[in-house]
């Protein structure tokens, strides 16, 4: 059974300036005179602040908030990439995170080689990924382009390929940072169909978006984030209303 449980999860990301990252200044700080009372070399960004949250199968969570409110970082906690610096995050179930779908694709390698390279990261074996090449060639409408290096692709073609590979596996938990707009009108409709299919099959969905219509269509619960904190939790209608009244 898929579930996500955050308990007082906080993500504090230290930002080291050039001096903070250097080994020398760390040595000098110890052999030098008095220590600075506050450490000015490190700026700490609290991207997610003390969030307690639990998601169970059937939950379709909308993440709402301004840029920099912590939506993406929260999604990265859900994916397991960020383990909270304090507090805990327990994630059970397989995760499909479509946050950066072009992750790991290599411009020098051909489309087909990239299907395999990307495929192993979405949980396919090399053989499975190879067998999927014809299917992906057809679905993405890239056909013979798959024999060419990725650097020859237009950005639209690249996205089509990345999207096609990233969505071949259905997982328990689906994470989305904005709905991915892929390609021209015909293709976008096809892509939308595919992602809706993925959403239907996923136990848990978390979707960050600024488009309230999309959130209302796909989600049944919403949280409003501000400066890394959950400031409201409730129905999508209530939360989107609260968000737009704040923005106004």
């Amino acid at each position: 059974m898929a579930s996500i449980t955050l308990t007082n999860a906080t993500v504090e990301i230290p930002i080291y300036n050039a001096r903070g990252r250097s080994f020398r200044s760390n040595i000098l700080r110890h052999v030098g005179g008095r220590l600075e009372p506050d450490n000015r070399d490190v700026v700490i960004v609290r991207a997610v602040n003390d969030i307690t949250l639990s998601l169970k199968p059937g939950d379709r969570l909308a993440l709402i908030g301004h840029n920099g409110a912590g939506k993406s970082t929260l999604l990265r906690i859900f994916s397991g990439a960020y383990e909270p610096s304090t507090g805990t995050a327990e994630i059970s179930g397989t995760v499909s995170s479509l946050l950066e779908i072009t992750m790991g694709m290599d411009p020098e390698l051909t489309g087909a080689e990239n299907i395999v390279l990307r495929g192993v990261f979405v949980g396919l074996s090399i053989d499975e990924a190879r067998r999927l090449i014809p299917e992906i060639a057809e679905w993405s409408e890239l056909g013979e382009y798959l024999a060419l290096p990725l650097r020859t692709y237009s950005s639209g073609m690249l996205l089509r390929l990345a999207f096609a590979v990233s969505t071949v596996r259905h997982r328990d938990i689906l994470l989305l940072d904005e709905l991915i707009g892929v390609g021209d009108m015909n293709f976008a409709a096809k892509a939308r169909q595919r992602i809706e299919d993925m959403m239907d099959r996923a136990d848990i969905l978390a979707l960050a978006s600024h488009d309230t219509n999309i959130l209302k269509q796909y989600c049944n619960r919403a949280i409003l984030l501000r400066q890394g904190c959950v400031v409201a939790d409730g129905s999508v209608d209530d939360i989107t209303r609260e968000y737009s009244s704040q923005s106004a």
Partner: protein
Amino acid sequence: MAALDGVAMGALVWPTKRDWRLAASDMVRGLLAWEIWTLLGVSDIRQRYKRSRLGQFWITASMAFFVASTGVVYSLLFNQPIYDYVPLLAVNMTVWTLISGIVTDSTTAFVQAGMYLRQDALPKAIFVIRVLTRNLIILGHNIVIIPLVFLAFGVVPTPVAVLAIPGLALLIVAAFAVTLISSLLCTRFRDLPQIVQNLLQIAFFVTPVLWRPEQIGESAFYLVALNPFAAFLRIVADPLRGQVPDALAYANALLSTLILFAIALPLFARFRARIVYWL
């Protein structure tokens, strides 16, 4: 050591039970994900030589050029017979390239994998093993020089050569620990890769790669017996040249491996989860 963590959380604390458990699971899952690390290792090599006609055989060709040119110059410089010196150089350089390649690549293992680590809960060990895979592929390309050189200079291999296999195995095990330590610290301290590069340069000259310990005399003891680089070089290179490595080399290599793991495991357990914060 609070500086290592970056966050003002006080002193460096020993990893908790949970840290150990997660670190162990990371390594086991990382080892089992062999399809990912072989694919990454192969792609690294393939990508590097993709648009060149000779492709990855540039690795072999570069080594051949190096051995040929350095072999001639140094055999004259050291006043050594060329049929004796070139085979020695070919074997030593092949093994040294493996060692130095791993150490160099280790400094960027996690930084290079940033895009993966920020998005998915992938075992960090995958990217450590990827470095080893990549350099073993390079070794595969370089090692073909050795039979060619042996053939050219009439060196007959002896059955002792099989001892190179356990030697290489121990080297790889130690390299895992080295890569773990170096990749983690180099992600946190971005000056460290430059320092490592410089130390490696020095290590090349104080390790008997280009020269024989006998040429130095008495003081060679310190450079050869106490130098872990020399120990790992000898347990792989000596058997290939038909010599049984001395017990001291094995003892040094084993002890170094133990020490490396004694550092690498707690370090990784404690800071594994922090790596992604440092990217």
